[in-house]
Structure formats: structure tokens, C-alpha cells
């Protein structure tokens, strides 16, 4: 806190501006924010705006919407949107569907730390290492197929890499722990006494989940869905390494990368990045709107 000056300000105009700023919360301490804010404005906000501008100035001329018309007139390119959605939506739903029951169970566990530590590993290792491991493990001669064959569940090795399944599995390996951690943090925020009360009043497990847990969890699940979806929607390394990047798993990130770094058309690359961002925003807005319809209780995890 600054000491309050006892004498009248010498230059009334300047002082009053300073006072006014201080009343709005700006003083030397607030100024400490400036370097970080300028940095993010310069290297995040400016590039984002520049990307939009660049996408409207096509490299080969032809009007400011040329990149977008080119994108939406070539099925091989605009098809990447649907390829990516077909991958990202089911993966996110599967990850969420797995996370909720497991988180509800783990919440009552004593040694949560061990499990969460084990599950942080794939997040840390990242998709590139996961992809390389999957090529060994899920490959035709890998352990997974060998186990299934020696159990006589299959006679021929199942193809699990270099196709859609490969990318799907890799998104579960690295996406599920992420979803689980978030859901667990929301689940632990729900007061267990609410569920106990419902149980005492005779609600069965399914009813307790439907009427107590789910409404309280809805907002958290919507946020988790959004965060997991945008990650899955911008998948790149695993779609190339364990997928079939020229066909079934040609996701939109590959199209953007191809335009910018293989055809050296940064304008088109930026246009695809903009389209990617817009689709992500649309899906996020849709999910948040749906969850606002669904959830009508007080905010927070029932702690009030």
C-alpha cells in the first residue's frame, strides 16, 4: 500500500489522473502485469489476427476469399473436416464415458496418488513416443497380437496401426488420462453427503447418478469435453505416424501443414488454421449452450 500524501497535490491535473487510475486498480503493482501481457499480445493475439489477415490475402491472388473458396471446393481438402470430426468426436465421447465411472470409483480410493501418477505418464510422454511404442506393441508381430493369437481369440494378426484404429487408440492412450484427471477433479468437488442423503432416502446407484451426480457434474463434463475435443481435433503427430496420413486419417492439421510447409503457401495454411479454429469455437459454443440447458442448479460442486 502506498502512503497517503498529507499535502495537497502540487499538480492537480496529473495527480487526479493518477488517483483516478488508482481507483480503477492501476498502480505500480498492476504494472508488473505489463511485460507478460505485452508478450502474449505480441506472440499470440497478433499472430492470430495476422493469420486471419494473411488468409484473406491469397498467395496466388484471386480475391480475398480465394483461399476459402479453394478449400471448400476441393473434396480432398474439405473432407479433412469430416475425417477429423469422425475421429475427434467419438474419441472424446469414449474418453469421457470411461472417465466418469472410473473417477467415481477412484474418488473413494485411498491411494489415489499412485493411480494418478501412473496416468500422468502418457500425458508426459506425449503422442510421438506413444506412436512409436504403439507401432511396436500393436503391430502385426507385436505383443498385443501375439497374446490374442496364443489365446486363440484370433487366427490372423489384427491390423491396429497405420489406419483409423491406430489413431483412435493413440488418442485414447494419451487423451483418456487427461480427461480422467479433469473429471476426477470435478467429481471430488461434489459433496459426498449429498449422495449419502439420497442413498438413505432409498435412491439406487443408477438413480443417484442420474439425479445427483450427473446434474452437478454437467458443467464440468462440458468443459472437459471442450478441452479434450479441441486437443483431439488438432491431432497431428499420431495421425501421421500410426495413421494413414494420405487417406483415412488425413486430418485437418495435416492439410494445414501440407499447405504451409510443403507447398510453402502460408496464406492457405493460415486459412486452414482459421477454419480449424472456427470449427473448434462452434463445437465449444454448442456444447456450452447444451450444458447451460441441462444444468439449472447452483454453481459449484454442491459445497454451499
Amino acid at each position, binding site marked *: *500500500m502506498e502512503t497517503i500524501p498529507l499535502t495537497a497535490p502540487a499538480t492537480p491535473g496529473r495527480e487526479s489522473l493518477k488517483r483516478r487510475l488508482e481507483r480503477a486498480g492501476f498502480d505500480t503493482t498492476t504494472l508488473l502485469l505489463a511485460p507478460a501481457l505485452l508478450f502474449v499480445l505480441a506472440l499470440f493475439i497478433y499472430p*492470430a489476427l495476422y493469420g486471419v489477415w494473411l488468409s484473406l490475402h491469397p498467395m496466388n491472388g484471386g480475391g480475398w476469399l480465394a483461399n476459402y473458396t479453394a478449400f471448400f471446393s476441393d473434396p480432398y481438402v474439405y473432407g479433412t473436416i469430416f475425417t477429423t470430426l469422425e475421429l475427434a468426436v467419438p474419441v472424446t465421447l469414449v474418453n469421457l464415458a470411461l472417465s466418469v465411472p472410473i473417477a467415481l470409483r477412484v474418488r473413494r480410493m485411498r491411494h489415489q496418488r499412485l493411480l494418478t501418477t501412473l496416468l500422468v505418464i502418457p500425458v508426459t510422454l506425449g503422442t510421438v*513416443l506413444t506412436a512409436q511404442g504403439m507401432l511396436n506393441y500393436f503391430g502385426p508381430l507385436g505383443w498385443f497380437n501375439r497374446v490374442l493369437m496364443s489365446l486363440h481369440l484370433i487366427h490372423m494378426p489384427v491390423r491396429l496401426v497405420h489406419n483409423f484404429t491406430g489413431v483412435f487408440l493413440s488418442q485414447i492412450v494419451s487423451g483418456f488420462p487427461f480427461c480422467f484427471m479433469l473429471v476426477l477433479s470435478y467429481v471430488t468437488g461434489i459433496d459426498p453427503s449429498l449422495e*449419502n442423503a439420497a442413498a438413505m432416502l432409498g435412491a439406487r446407484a443408477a438413480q443417484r447418478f442420474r439425479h445427483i451426480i450427473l446434474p452437478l457434474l454437467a458443467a464440468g463434463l462440458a468443459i472437459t469435453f471442450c478441452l479434450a475435443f*479441441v486437443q483431439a481435433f488438432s491431432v*497431428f503427430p499420431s495421425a501421421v505416424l500410426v495413421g494413414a496420413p494420405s487417406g483415412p486419417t488425413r486430418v485437418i492439421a495435416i492439410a494445414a501443414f501440407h499447405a*504451409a510447409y510443403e507447398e510453402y503457401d502460408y496464406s492457405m495454411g493460415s486459412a486452414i488454421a482459421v477454419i480449424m*479454429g472456427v470449427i473448434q469455437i462452434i463445437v465449444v459454443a454448442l456444447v456450452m449452450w447444451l450444458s447451460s440447458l441441462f444444468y439449472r442448479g447452483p454453481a459449484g460442486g454442491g459445497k454451499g
Partner: protein
Amino acid sequence: MFATSDIGGRLWRLGVWAVVGFFLLNLAGIIASVVVDSLGTSWFGTWLPDGFTTHWYSDAWSGFQLGGVLQVTLEVAGAVILGSAILGVPAAYALARREFAGKKLVMLVFVLPLIIPPFTYGIPLASVLYQFGLGGTLAGVILANLVPSVPFVIFILVPFIEQIDPRVEAAARVFGAGTWDLFRRVMVPLLMPGILAALVLVLVRTIGLFELTFLTAGPDNQTLVVALYYSVFAAGIRATQSIDAMAVVYMVTSLICLIVALRFVDPTQIVGRAKKVEAH
């Protein structure tokens, strides 16, 4: 608690643990297959390799210029840690201690780089860096990696700072400490556990962050994960075992960082420690 004793409840519980077990088993298989392959002589169509050797590691060291790649990785990680501390710690302090007009907007600006996936903003960011002649340089890679790291440090530190009693600062002010003294002698020592936790997590993230480095690096300044990507991408040029040796080096590097991070990162513990220091 009210354990469900009926058959359905038991089956459900069994099913949940079976899914967790199946996931962890496959995860272990994925990791172990990389480690085993990197140590095997040749492995084709059998449960385990024919014999074991360590020469793939020396191959990887010479073949991938692994020494150089590790050096770049450490340089990038070190610079990102330093930069995000210098930019992030003061900003976190201001956000934790001051209410001001437009604070929500500032928070939004900081949260966006964390929730928007790097591939979405990476291409425009790379074109801006190329525009300023920074594309493909070490400085460019560092700047790109700082973009998500600075907000990350801020959002980890804000709750830590809010836990510290503002009267400690007020007392320091009364005894004549300026903002700089206050920061250096009071806040930083009190916040040390939080700062360390945030910075170790930045280290883990920077080592693991693929997209931004991939989009901004030139051939001479690839980090470990990007070099690994290129070697998997160009599979067939090099022996798989050699790639796996490199993958193991990457894995060990990030796991060591993760273990260090988890020693610091239990937030309740850190807050407890900060409060204890305060009470003395």
C-alpha cells in the same frame, strides 16, 4: 460408506477396475516394447529379442547427433524456464493482489494460449516469426515455446500468492521496503515452492511439447521430441532399435523431470509449507 453389496454393484465395480487394469497393462506394454526393442539385437516374430545389447544407444548417439539434440533441448528448456519465470511471476503477483478494470479480459487473454491447441495457432505464429527473421532459429523456437508457458506459470502461481497473507507485505512496506525489495526478500522466498513447482512443470511441458517446436524449428535446432518424430516418420532409413534407443532417452529425460515435479507439486503440501514459514 454405503457399499453396494448386490451382484450388479459388484460386477460394475469389477468392470471398472478391469478397464483400468486393461488400460494400464497396454500402457505398460507400449512402453516396455520400446525399451525391450532398444536393447535387443534382432527381434522378429518372437516374444523377446534373440539377444540383448546396448550398441543401439551408441548408434543413436552418433547417428542422430543425439548430443547436439539434447543440448538444443536443454538450451530451449532452460531459456523457456527463465523467460516464463521473469514474465510470469510478476504478472501472477499483480493478478493475485489487484482488482482492476478489465481484469477479466486480461485473464481471457492469458487463458487462450492454454486452451487453444498449439497446432491451431502454430502456423500463424510461425509465419510471424519467419516475417521477423526468427523462423528456424533457436530464438524463434524459444519464443514459440514461451507462448503457452508464460500463462501456465501465471495460472499455477496465482492461487499460491493468494494464500500468502497480505499483511506480510504490508509489514515489509511499513519497514520501508520498495516493490523490488519486497519482491526479492519477501515474496520470492515465500513463493519458492510454488515457483519451483511451476518451473519444473514448464520443463516437463517444454520437453514434451511437439507442435510449436515442430512448426518453428529449422534443421539445426530441433528438440528431442521433434527429432524423434522425424526419425519415426522416416522409418526404414534407420534401424527401429536405434529409433527406440532415442525414444528411451527421451522417455527417461521426461520421466526424471516428472518425478522431480511430483515431489514439489502436491499443492496442499506447498501451501502448508508457505503458511508454516509465514507463522515463524
